[in-house]
């Protein structure tokens, strides 16, 4: 929470970018702009044509037997290109030593504007993942316990005033991945070694210009015979009091993780954009 506090204290003074509020999206588990679970086609921050945006984020997911904490930074340029760096710390209740993973992300907007073009905004991205603590991944039978790369394509569309006068946003992402539990348990496994295509979906309604409620679903591979892996889902409230801050609260259902069933709990995320 000290990171969260320092993000709030940072009291950003630089002018925010020119995009409309909430079009930053929030920060997803691997550091990309998106919903909480899944990357969207939106580019992080508020950078519009010719502008840059820089932000930092802290996320925690606290379920029955595990905690995941994510710290990182993100930058974007020209509402076109996004880069991010995140460190995930996965804590296991009653076990000394976290599993740490670094995720370096890049995303490029290929087409469109989520609000203004008839067709959705479409972006392509990748997430390069490096497992710092790979011993657990090795022990549970991961094919690779060092590095993995996820590739994805996302489409995001805002339908203005479409839900009884409220703006509606949806996102669909298709990800090619070998990651076991985001990569925290390595990449590929004894049951499935190679890449799989998994869909991810989000939808939200903006109750006003800075307050969204929605839900997400993220399918995941199930590569390891030792443990069953489930999809992730959540329902969330995202608040954008201004263009410098986003607070997101969610109730997340992470399913079965490393043999522990029904891992549900609170998801909290804070993103601050300094520029």
């Amino acid at each position, binding site marked *: 929470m000290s990171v969260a506090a320092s993000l709030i204290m940072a009291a950003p003074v630089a002018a925010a970018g*020119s995009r409309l509020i909430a079009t930053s999206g929030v920060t997803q588990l691997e550091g990309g702009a998106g919903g909480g679970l899944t990357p969207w086609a939106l580019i992080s921050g508020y950078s519009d044509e010719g502008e840059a945006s820089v932000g930092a984020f802290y996320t925690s997911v606290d379920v029955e037997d595990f905690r995941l904490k994510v710290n990182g930074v993100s930058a974007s340029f020209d509402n076109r290109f996004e880069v991010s760096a995140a460190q995930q710390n996965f804590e296991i209740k009653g076990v000394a030593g976290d599993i740490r993973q670094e995720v370096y992300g890049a995303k490029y907007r290929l087409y469109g504007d989520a609000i203004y073009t008839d067709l959705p905004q479409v972006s392509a991205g990748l997430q390069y993942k490096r497992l710092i603590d790979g011993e657990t991944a090795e022990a549970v039978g991961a094919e690779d316990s060092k590095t993995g790369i996820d590739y994805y394509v996302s489409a995001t569309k805002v339908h203005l005033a479409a*839900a009884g*006068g409220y703006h509606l946003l949806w996102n669909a992402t298709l990800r090619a991945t070998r990651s076991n539990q985001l990569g925290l348990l390595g990449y590929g496994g004894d049951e499935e070694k190679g890449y799989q295509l998994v869909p991810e979906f989000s939808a939200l309604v903006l109750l006003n210009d800075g307050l969204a409620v929605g839900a997400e679903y993220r399918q995941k591979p199930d590569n390891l015979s030792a443990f069953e892996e489930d999809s992730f889902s959540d329902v969330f409230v995202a608040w954008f009091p201004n263009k410098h801050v986003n607070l997101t609260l969610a109730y997340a259902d992470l399913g079965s993780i490393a043999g522990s069933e029904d891992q549900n709990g609170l998801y909290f995320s804070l993103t601050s954009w300094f520029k």
Partner: protein
Amino acid sequence: MFIRLQTMLVAIALCTSWASVSHATDSYYEELGGRTGVENIVDNFINEISYDQHIVTFFEGSDIARLREKLIEQFCKESGGPCEYTGDSMKDVHAGMNISTGEFNRVVELLQTAMDKAGTPQTAQNRLIRSLAPMRPDIIHR
């Protein structure tokens, strides 16, 4: 608690959305507050523009009384009110201004502030934004 709230909100959103689909041709002019509401919005809008040090430069030398009249006509007509828009086309009005996407968004924000200050309901605000959004290609990069 979250789930229940969520379910409720989605249910409400769905209900109202069905309602709006079945009355898709209805105007929202009355929701904007009719003639008085639209005049308030436009007056606030021009006021917000006049306080924005960058955006105001686009209006230097403009006939503000005429701008007011044409904006009222436009918002009235777009919302289904009893008006005709007698101004120039959006393309002609913005020709040579080379308005950026950021400047366009800034004006959207000024309009949203204007509507907030006029007490315009959120759903009517959103509907006006929806009506005006398709004009963007005729406004930016001209």
